[in-house]
C-alpha cells in the first residue's frame, strides 16, 4: 500500500523528477515516473542552477548521499513556487549573490569553480568568518540553509543519514540501555 500510495502521490507532484528516487522503496512503481530534466516552476534556469549548487554545498555528497541525491533543489523550487511570501527573499538573495561574486571575483556565481564558490560562501555561512556589510547575504544564506535542511532531512535519504528511529517500529516502550549510569558519564566512545 505504501508503495502504491507514494507512486500515486509523486505522480501528482508537478514536475518532480528525482522525487521517486529519493524514496528508496519505489520498486516497479518507480517506472511510472520518468526521469527527465527538471523544469523549475518558480526559479529561472539560471537561478535554479545556483539553488542546486548551493544545496549541494550546504549538504554535500560525501561518504553518504547529499542534497543532490535527495532532490532538495526541486523541493525548494516547489515550496517557493507555492509560497508567495518566500519568493522575494529568494529572488533578491540570488541577485545579491551574483553581485557579490562579481564584486569579489569578477565572475557570476555559477561561473566559478566549486572551490571558489565554497570560499566565497564562507563569510556568509560561518559565524567565525562573518564580515561587516554582508548581513543581507548572511540572511539569504540562512534562508537557503533552512530550506535545504528541511528538504534533505524529510526524505528517506535524510532519514537514513540520521538513522532516524521513525524508520522502525517498536514492540515496547524503548528504554535507556545504560543501566547504572544515569548521568551518562561512561558511555562508549561517540560513534559519529
Amino acid at each position: 500500500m505504501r508503495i502504491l500510495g507514494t507512486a500515486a502521490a509523486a505522480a501528482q507532484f508537478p514536475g518532480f523528477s528525482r522525487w521517486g528516487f529519493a524514496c528508496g522503496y519505489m520498486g516497479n512503481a518507480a517506472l511510472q515516473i520518468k526521469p527527465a530534466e527538471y523544469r523549475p516552476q518558480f526559479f529561472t534556469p539560471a537561478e535554479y542552477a545556483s539553488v542546486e549548487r548551493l544545496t549541494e554545498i550546504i549538504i554535500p555528497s560525501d561518504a553518504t548521499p547529499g542534497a543532490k541525491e535527495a532532490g532538495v533543489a526541486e523541493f525548494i523550487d516547489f515550496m517557493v513556487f507555492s509560497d508567495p511570501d518566500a519568493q522575494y527573499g529568494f529572488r533578491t538573495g540570488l541577485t545579491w549573490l551574483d553581485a557579490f561574486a562579481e564584486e569579489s571575483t569578477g565572475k557570476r556565481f555559477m561561473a566559478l569553480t566549486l572551490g571558489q564558490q565554497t570560499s566565497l560562501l564562507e563569510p556568509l555561512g560561518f559565524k567565525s568568518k562573518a564580515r561587516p556589510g554582508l548581513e543581507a547575504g548572511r540572511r539569504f544564506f540562512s534562508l537557503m540553509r533552512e530550506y535545504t535542511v528541511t528538504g534533505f532531512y524529510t526524505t528517506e535519504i535524510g532519514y537514513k543519514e540520521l538513522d532516524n528511529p521513525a524508520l522502525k517500529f517498536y514492540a515496547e516502550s524503548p528504554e535507556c540501555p545504560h543501566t547504572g549510569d544515569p548521568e551518562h558519564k561512561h558511555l562508549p566512545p561517540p560513534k559519529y
Partner: protein
Amino acid sequence: MANQIHDVIVIGTGAGGGMAIKTLCDAGLKVCALNASRRLDPEKDFRFHRMPWDMKFRGLDDPKRRGESFGYMDNEYTKAAWDHEIPFTTPPGMKWMWPRCNAVGGKTNFWGRSSARFGDIDFKAASLDGYDVDWPLTYDEISPFYTRVEKMIGVASTVQNRPSNPDGSYLPPFNFRCLDFILQSGCNKVGVPYLPDRCAQLTQPHEGHPACHFCGECTTGCDVGAFFSTPYFLLPKAEATKNLELRTDALVKNVLVDENGQATGVAYIDRQTKQEVEVYGRAVVVAASCIESARIMLNSKSRHWPNGIANTSGQLGRNLCDHLYGESARGYLPQLLGQPSFPDHVGDSTIAWMPRWQNLKDPHEEKFIRGYSVYPDGGCEEFPGFATELDGFGSSFKREVKRRYPTHVSFGVQAPTLRSDTNFVDLDPEVKDPYGIPVARIHFEWDENVLKMWEHSKQVCSDVLRAAGAELEKTGDEPEIPGFSLHETGTCRMGNDRNKFVTNRFGQTHDVPNLYVCDASVFLNCTDKTTTISILAFSLRTSEHLIENFRRGEHQAA
C-alpha cells in the same frame, strides 16, 4: 420524526460531550447528539504512518493555507479535521489562537494525553492564598469519578506521593530514555521533581483496546485507538445501546426555551443544506468546549434571557483562564554527542513531567501564587529542527547534525492564569460567521502572576540544564500567544451562589434546571494540570446528577 422529543440533547462529542452521551445512553435515556462537523474516517482522514516524503509538502501543508490558518494544529496529516470556516475576533491589541477540531470526537482525536488529577491544593487554592474563591466541591467528592475515568481510558504513570498531585490507578509507565535519566539527575541536584508523566496512552492492552505501538504519531490521530478518544472509547459504547442519534454537520446556533424560560431543545444549522433545524429534548447538555459553549449560550437570547440563557449572574462568558505555554529553555547534552540514535520520539512528548513543586508548603513562598508544571522533551525527533539554526555548511555541517541529533532537549512550561474581570468572551456586535451567527470575541491578556511564573520557569529550567551537564543554548524570549495550549476554562464557572456563578456544584445552570454544562467552562480556573481527564470526571458526575434528576421526575423522560 420532526416533532420527536428526545430525553437529552447533547451539544458536542469531545471529552465532555462524549462522556455525557455514553453515560446517559447507558442509563437508558434517549440522546440526540449534535456535532458541528463530520465524522472522521480513519482510513481517509488520519494520515498517520506516512513519511514526510509521502506528502506533497512533506507534512508541512501548503504555505498559502498555513498563512490563513486560525491555528497551529494544521498540517498535512490532519488538515481535514480542523475548522477554518468559523471565525472569531479579538479586540485591538489582543491576540488569541483558537484551533478547533469540530470533527466527531473533537480535540480528543489529537490531544496531548497528559492526565493528572486536580487536587485539594487546586480546589481550596483560594483558602490557601486568598485569591478568588474555592471550588464548590472537595477532592474526596470527585476522586471516585477520576478512578472510574482512569479505568475507562487507561493512564500510564506511577504513584508519586506529591502534595499537588493526587495519585490514581495506573498502567505501567513509559520507560525513561537516556535524556530522561540525564535531566532527572540535573533536577535532583536543583531539587525539583522529574517523574513519569501521567499519560493516557496504553502501555498494555486495556479494556478491549490494544496497546500502543510506539510510532510516535499520536497527535496526528491513532489508527488502533491506543490512547483515549471518544470515537474509539465512548461513542461506540453509546451507539451499541441504540439510544443515541448522532447528527453531524450540525452547527448549534442557540438553545430554545419555552414560555417559562426552560430549555426545550436546540436550533442548529445543517452545514450540508444550510438550513436551520430545530431538535427538541427534555434536557440540554452544552459541551461544545469552553468558548464555543459560551458563544452558544450568549447567543440564546429570548424574552426571559435578554443577555444569554442562564445568565442572570452576568458571569456567562466571564473568567476566561488559559495555560501559558512556552519554551522556558533549551540546550543540548554533550554526553550524547555522536551516540547512536535512540527512539526518543515514541511517546510523542508525554514520557516525563516536572509536576508543580512551587508554593507547596507555603502558598506565598514564591513571588507568584499557585504553581506551574513543566514538560521536558527532546532527543531524536522525526525532524532535526535544531539543524536549521546550526552554523556552517558542508561535510562538517552534515556531520555536526548527525553528532547532535540525539542531544537536543527543551522544557515547555504549563502555567495557569488567574481569574480576571478583563479576560472574557462575548459576542462580536458586528462580525457574523457564514451562517449569520455572531462570532465569539475573545478578550484576553496574560496576567502579572503568570508572567512571573514564566520568568521563574526560565531560571529553573536553565539551572536544571546546567546541573545536568548540558550546554544551555537559549532561554525563552516570548511565550506562545494565548489560546495555544487549548486549555481554556471558566466561562460558566460552578459555585453555590447563583448571583456569582452560572452553574451549581453539579454543572447544572442555576437559572435553567434542565440545562447542564459538561466541559471545562465550569472550572474555576485551569490549575497547573491539563484539562481533559478532569473534563471527563466532571462530565461523568454531572451526567449522573442529570440521570438522578430524571429518576426523581424533575425532567420527565420522553
